[in-house]
């Protein structure tokens, strides 16, 4: 099994999902090979936010304007955004599509079994909130992205795509 995660494959899949707007706050795990190329890519418009919960609202406004978007953040920002995530994304039925870097996750270890407390609680929290999530850790996982985004928009519900290793 291919244990690498290629940033250009992720970008291709994001485009395949019809996303041309990325709302982002730099995450050390994804900024070098994912966010920076997206910032240089004329196919995308990037809206940089000062705090991750702004992004949940911006994506919701974009949804009402019939525009798809991706919120690219670190898991710490996800944890910091619980109120907006529960009230706006889940209860407000907004298809907020989040790509979340799991900075510090041990390769090959499921997030819920990480030695790091902050990482270990991410998946149980998403489960209890009823938010669909997928671990994107190898090239085989990348093909999950576009269908997950399609489901989010079809069902008007958020989805979290958890980036489990630094894309190359």
């Amino acid at each position, binding site marked *: 099994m291919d244990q690498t995660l290629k940033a250009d494959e992720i970008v291709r899949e994001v485009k395949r999902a019809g996303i041309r*707007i990325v709302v982002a706050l730099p995450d050390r795990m994804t900024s070098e090979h994912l966010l920076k190329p997206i910032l240089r890519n004329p196919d995308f*418009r990037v*809206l*940089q*936010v*000062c*705090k991750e*919960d*702004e*992004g*949940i*609202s*911006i*994506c*919701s*406004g*974009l*949804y*009402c*304007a*019939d*525009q798809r*978007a991706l919120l690219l953040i670190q898991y710490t920002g996800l944890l910091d955004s619980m*109120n*907006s995530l529960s*009230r*706006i994304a889940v*209860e*407000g*039925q907004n298809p907020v599509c989040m790509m979340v870097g799991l900075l510090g996750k041990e390769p090959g270890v499921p997030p819920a079994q990480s030695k790091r407390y902050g990482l270990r609680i991410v998946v149980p929290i998403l489960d209890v909130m009823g938010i669909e999530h997928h671990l994107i850790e190898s090239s085989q996982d990348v093909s999950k992205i576009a269908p997950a985004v399609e489901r989010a928009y079809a069902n008007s519900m958020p989805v979290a795509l958890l980036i489990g290793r630094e894309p190359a």
Partner: protein
Amino acid sequence: MMKRDECLKVLARHRSNEIVVAVWKAAHEWIHISPSDLNYTFVGAMGQGASHALGLAVGRPDKRVIVLDGDGSLLMNLGCLVTIANAAPRNLVHCLCENGVYETNGSVAVPGAGRVSFTGLAREAGYAKVYEFSLLEDWDRALDRILKEDGPIFVDLKVEMGEDYPEDFRRLYSIQHREAFRRALKNA
């Protein structure tokens, strides 16, 4: 100082087909003063009104978006001023109903009430234009121009509580009204 509902009535008279994002007390008042399917009250979490408005303004650059924010709300999400100025949507008018208190939560004073300069914060964040009004006639006189200018524009409205309007949070966050908004915007 202006009564907030009187201030909103002036805006309603100048409104044509703008999207209006309203939060908390202003939202309860606005849906009675200027009913429209292009009213967006589905903000969900305190402080987030201007961020929803930014998404709408970027998604529909052909439509003018007005947000009726509160000072307690804006203090909860001050970074949005920098985010909005950086994104620089020309079609966004960010109105602040500054009353100095958390009116929905017992009218306790906001931190820095009367000392914080919201126009100063917006100006230094990089808003294209910044205004402040405390008299209805000045607000009335300037509105037509403001609604045509390139933004992002920040308007600090010095207000106090006016008439009492019924609170209906279920209406503000109703999914049915959100879907009606989406349909109306698609056809607008």
